[in-house]
């Protein structure tokens, strides 16, 4: 940096710090020292259970979205045009409508009347299972497109070489195409998984008692504010930051390799 840039950099830093400080004083002054952390402590059990539910949903939907993502990828590369076009149309529909609508429509109109009773009889919480399924389909649609982009970005000679050494179509994908494609799309996949964790909060609309739902309950019952929202933000950060870090680490490792 030049000397002038150093000065400009310092100036901007001071201005930013002042702006943030001013905003904080304004907000905290308005709260008027009514923050009472004992309220959050009283509801700790419900908040912890909600957080664990969010963790569980995220893991399950992550696995589910990988399954659906692979299915959508293969469907779009199928030699049968009818499979390709059906897949294409379904993906377009899923990606162009809000997750909120999928959850409400999918739960109340499609799945609840069909499988709520059998699921409950089998000892499952039907809302959780159906919620995970709908979230998996939604994220799987995006993952499928990301994977397709990765697979299609691999140059033709790699496909040719893989076929020439005698690999079967499955082996071509497994040993040659996927390892290369995954490296290319890793950052995009990490971003998708982060948004999957955040989107799991939408499951609250069908009454799944996950972190957001339980926090909202806590806030409305105890008239809490900051005491609810700050743990809420920190709870989600605790889930998303490790994913982001892991992705950066993997990205760096693979970059050294090639």
């Amino acid at each position, binding site marked *: 940096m030049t000397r002038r840039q150093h000065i400009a950099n310092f100036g901007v830093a001071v201005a930013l710090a002042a702006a943030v400080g001013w905003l904080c004083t304004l907000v905290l002054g308005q709260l008027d020292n009514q923050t009472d952390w004992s309220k959050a402590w009283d509801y700790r059990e419900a908040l912890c259970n909600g957080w664990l539910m969010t963790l569980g949903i995220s893991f399950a939907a992550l696995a589910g979205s990988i399954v659906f993502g692979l299915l959508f990828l293969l469907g779009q590369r199928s030699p049968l045009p009818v499979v390709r076009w059906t897949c294409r149309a379904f993906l377009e529909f899923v990606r162009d409508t809000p997750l909120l609508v999928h959850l409400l429509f999918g739960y109340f109109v499609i799945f609840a009347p069909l499988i709520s009773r059998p699921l409950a009889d089998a000892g499952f919480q039907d809302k959780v299972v159906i919620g995970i399924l709908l979230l998996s389909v939604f994220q799987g649609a995006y993952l499928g497109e990301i994977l397709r982009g990765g697979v299609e970005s691999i*140059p033709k*000679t*790699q496909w*040719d*070489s*893989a*076929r*020439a*050494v*005698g*690999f*079967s*179509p499955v*082996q071509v994908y497994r*040993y*040659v195409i996927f*390892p*290369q494609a995954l*490296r290319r799309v890793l950052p995009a996949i990490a971003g998708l998984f982060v948004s999957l964790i955040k989107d799991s909060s939408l499951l609250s609309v069908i009454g799944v008692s996950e972190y957001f739902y339980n926090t909202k309950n806590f806030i409305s019952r105890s008239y809490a504010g900051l005491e609810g929202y700050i743990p809420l933000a920190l709870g989600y950060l605790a889930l998303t930051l490790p994913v982001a870090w892991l992705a950066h680490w993997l990205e760096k490792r693979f970059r050294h*390799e*090639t």
Partner: protein
Amino acid sequence: MKLEVQGATRIYGATRALDGLTLSLPDARILVLIGPSGGGKSTLLRVLGGLETVDSGTVQVNAHHLLADPAALQAYRRKNGFLFQQFNLFPHLSARKNITLPLEKVHRHDPAKARSMADEALDRFGLLEHADKLPAQLSGGQQQRVGIARAVAFSPEILFLDEPTSALDPEMTAEVLELIQELAEAGQDIILSTHEMGFARAVADHVAFIASGRIEECGPPASVFGSPASPLCQRFLSRVMRY
């Protein structure tokens, strides 16, 4: 090797890459395909190597009738080696792993055996010291030599080489051509397309000149280069030999 191609036609969109190509060689060892770019050399190689099928006509290589049956073509490809112009190696695997992976997964050798076969092939071409490097850490010539080592590691019936030196500088070209000549002298059956006319003349026992998807001239190198009968071939040779 024996080649029998009758009226082979392959159409991509509006271009006829092969246009009723006929080639009959009862006994060839090193067949070199020459001719202008876009004339059909690559397509013919890909067809003979089992990577593509013809739209009409028949193709027979040794005892294999190449039909549009994916499983049979895959089995056929397992018997042969194929090398392209560049980017043959799998970039995420080391040179050695590039060779052992097909040996293990296609030819069903156990890992120890695959490793010893790979090291033998690398050693043969003086590449053993590069065994653990990734393709990106090798020069273009070394990459092509590893590619050839991979293709010959399991003693293929025929080695197909599609312009193996077109993407290399003169020095690397020489190192790759030397290696191919070595293989030819060791008795490997080879079908190769190239723009290196001197090399074609030195190494081939049959040369085929291909233009517009047809064989215009085919025979021993002395007659194709010395006294070509077809005017197209005469014009091509006089142009490329001028400098």
